[in-house]
Structure formats: C-alpha cells, structure tokens
C-alpha cells in the first residue's frame, strides 16, 4: 500500500506531468482560462488516463509480448478507439456528464499525456494496480496544474499588463514560475 501511495504522490507532485515532464501542454495552454473549464478538463483527463492505464496493462501482458515493435501503433489505435467508445457510452448512459465533459473527451485522444502515460508505465514495468495508481496520480497532477494555471489567468485578466505581453508569452512565464514551485517537491522522497 505504501508503495502505491508513493507512486501516486510522485506522479502528482514530484514528476508532475504538465509542469515537470511537459506532457499535455496543449490543453494546459488551451483550456486554462477559466477555473470551471479547467476542473472539467481535469476530470475528463483522470477518467481517460485511468482507462488507458488498464488497457495498456492488458495489452502489455497479453498481446505485445510477442510483438513489442507494434507497441506504439497498437497503443495509439486502441486509445483512440476506446475514447470514442467511452464518449458514445457516456452520451447514452449519462447525458448530464456528457454535457459537462462535452468536447473535451475527443480532444484528449491526441493529448500526449495519455500516450505518455501508457509508454512510461510500460518502460517502468508497472503492473496493472501500480499502473492504475500511477494514472490516478498523473491525472490529479494534471488537474492541479490546470486549476492553478486557470486561477492565475483569471487574476491576470484584471491586471494591467502591457499590450505586448497579452499573448501566450505571459502564460508561459507563469507556467515557468509554477514549474519552479513544483521543483521544490523534488526533495520530497530523498530520505
């Protein structure tokens, strides 16, 4: 149990997917203007990451043992189709949730955090349970980064920023500062 918790916290804070590993930057830049949207995007991400992790464990254990060179192709195809199926299922089963997540589900398919998770999980040799906690931690970290960024940007909206800085440049500098703060977690598990 302790080891699983360690995987969770490490993926969430120490190796934060967005701010330390640079995965999933497109949604981080694109949908971090409002806190509400950021939360929904984070929720959709956690959901897809958890499913991806289970599927990647399954593929690694049963399918790719004989053909490791097909790993990348099979991961991306399975993830893309899975997200489609999940989207259809949610639309049918829970229209309210579908409205909440809306366009974010299909967008997530081409989010590098999802494929990144599957590949990291494989490279580190995580089993199904470890991989699942890794996915939950990564998702929580993504959500944390998104919400922090959205709060900062909502605040910046009211600030008197020079016209030149009213573009992505400022957002990236903010992201750099957040990333700097997350570097502080690096020593968390040294002892």
């Amino acid at each position, binding site marked *: 149990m302790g080891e699983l918790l360690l995987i969770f916290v490490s993926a969430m804070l120490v190796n934060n997917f967005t*701010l*330390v*590993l*640079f*995965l*999933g*930057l*497109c949604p981080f*830049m694109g949908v971090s203007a409002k806190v509400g949207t950021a939360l929904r995007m984070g929720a959709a991400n956690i959901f897809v990451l958890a499913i991806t992790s289970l599927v990647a464990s399954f593929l690694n254990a049963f399918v790719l043992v004989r053909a490791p*060179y097909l790993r*990348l*192709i099979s991961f*991306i*195809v399975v993830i*893309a*189709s899975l997200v489609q199926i999940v989207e259809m299922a949610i639309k049918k089963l829970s229209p309210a949730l579908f409205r909440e997540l809306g366009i974010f589900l299909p967008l997530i398919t*081409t*989010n*590098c955090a*999802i*494929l*990144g998770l599957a*590949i*990291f999980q494989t*490279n580190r040799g995580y089993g199904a349970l470890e991989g699942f906690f890794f996915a939950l931690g990564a998702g929580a970290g993504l959500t944390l980064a998104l919400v922090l960024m959205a709060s900062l940007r909502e605040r910046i909206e009211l600030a008197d920023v020079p*016209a*030149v*800085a009213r*573009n*992505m*440049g*400022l*957002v*990236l*500098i903010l*992201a*750099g*500062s957040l*990333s*700097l703060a997350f*570097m502080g977690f690096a020593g968390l598990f040294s002892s």
Partner: protein
Amino acid sequence: MSPRTTTPSQDLLRGVWRENPVLVQLLGLCPALAVTNTVANALAMGLATFFVLLGSSLLVSSLKRLIPGEVRISAYILIIATFVTIADMVLAAVVPEIHKALGAFIALIVVNCMILGRQEAFASKRPVHRAALDAIGTGAGFMLALLLMGGIREVLGNGSFLGVPLFGDAFEPWIIMILPPGGFFTLGLLLLGLAGWEERKKVPVRPRSWPHGVTVQVRSGAVAEPVEADHG
C-alpha cells in the same frame, strides 16, 4: 470550398518563419520544451520529426484518393505511428545515448499536433510534390525553433554549445535553464520578444486584408479601423 491557391515557394517558405509551428502557431510545444535542454537533443528531435512529417505527408498525399473521409484521422495516425516506429528504431541503433536521453519523447512524436495538422490541412488535399514542399518547410521551421531553444538553453545553462565549452571557468552556469522551468521561461521570453518586434514594425493595414463588404478608412495619425460598408 477550394483551398486558397499558393505558389510552390510559398508552400515551402510559409512554415519556416511566418507560420512557424512552434513560435507562431504554438503547436508541438511538448517536444519543443521537453527535449531542448541541449543542442544535440534538439537536433535529434528536430531531425526525427522532420523525417516523420515528410514521410507521412508523402504517403498521405499519395493515398488521398484511397482513404475514406470517415476514418481519415485514424488512417493518418496509423501512417504517422509507422514512421515514428521507424525513426525510433533508427535512433536506437545509430545514436543510443541520445535515444536514451530523449526517452519517451520519440514515441510521443505520434501525438505532435503539428504533424497531424499538416496532414489534415494540407497533404490530404494537395498533390504529392506540394505536400513534400510544405512538409520540408514546416519541418525546417520546427527544427529552427528547437535549435533556437536548445542553443539558448545549453549556452546559458551549461556554458557550452554541442558539448563544447564556450566560456572559461569564471562562468557560473544558469542551472535553471536546463531544468524544466527554464524551458517555459525561454519560450515565454522568445514569444514576448517576437510580439514586441511585431509591434514595432507594425505597418498600416492594407485594405485588401479585410473581408468582403468591409472598407477601411485610414485617418492620418490613427490606427486603421474597419468600417462597415454602406449598403444603402
């Protein structure tokens, strides 16, 4: 809707600077930030992406009549993933150290939105030679941005260029530049610099660039503003 007509040289040069994927369109940011801590990594990543983009553009453009519209995105991703697998294996065999340093980011070229974007927006609609020109231009623009970032970060963060020390012992490297925050700061400052440059060389807007039905009145000493045409 027929695509806008462009000349071959426009196809080639557009992606290099004016529509640079990283610095202007902000596509493919993950690799641009993650693997530019040294020039060698940036170069390897740029070359790998260039190869994947060129290969997929050529193949997508040649197969455009055979790929059904409904499943085109999946087909493009399959083609891209195939070329990425090739690039991954070649890098692992030729430059194992760099392959190790880039890690998962080689595989993640598959989800580089710049590549899929070029297939969907350009290669799937144009002849093969135009698609090749476009891929070369966009790939070169991506490589340019990566080398710029890698150069700045390695020189400041490590005091070297391609591993060759530039300064004497007196230089204290800015370690932060080769750490993750340095990537964000470098790109952020580059974008701010570019925005400032654009601001300074701003010229009066040409009337032609406004949509149909809108005319532009240029008053002396004022910024050009669109004015609704009088339809009466």
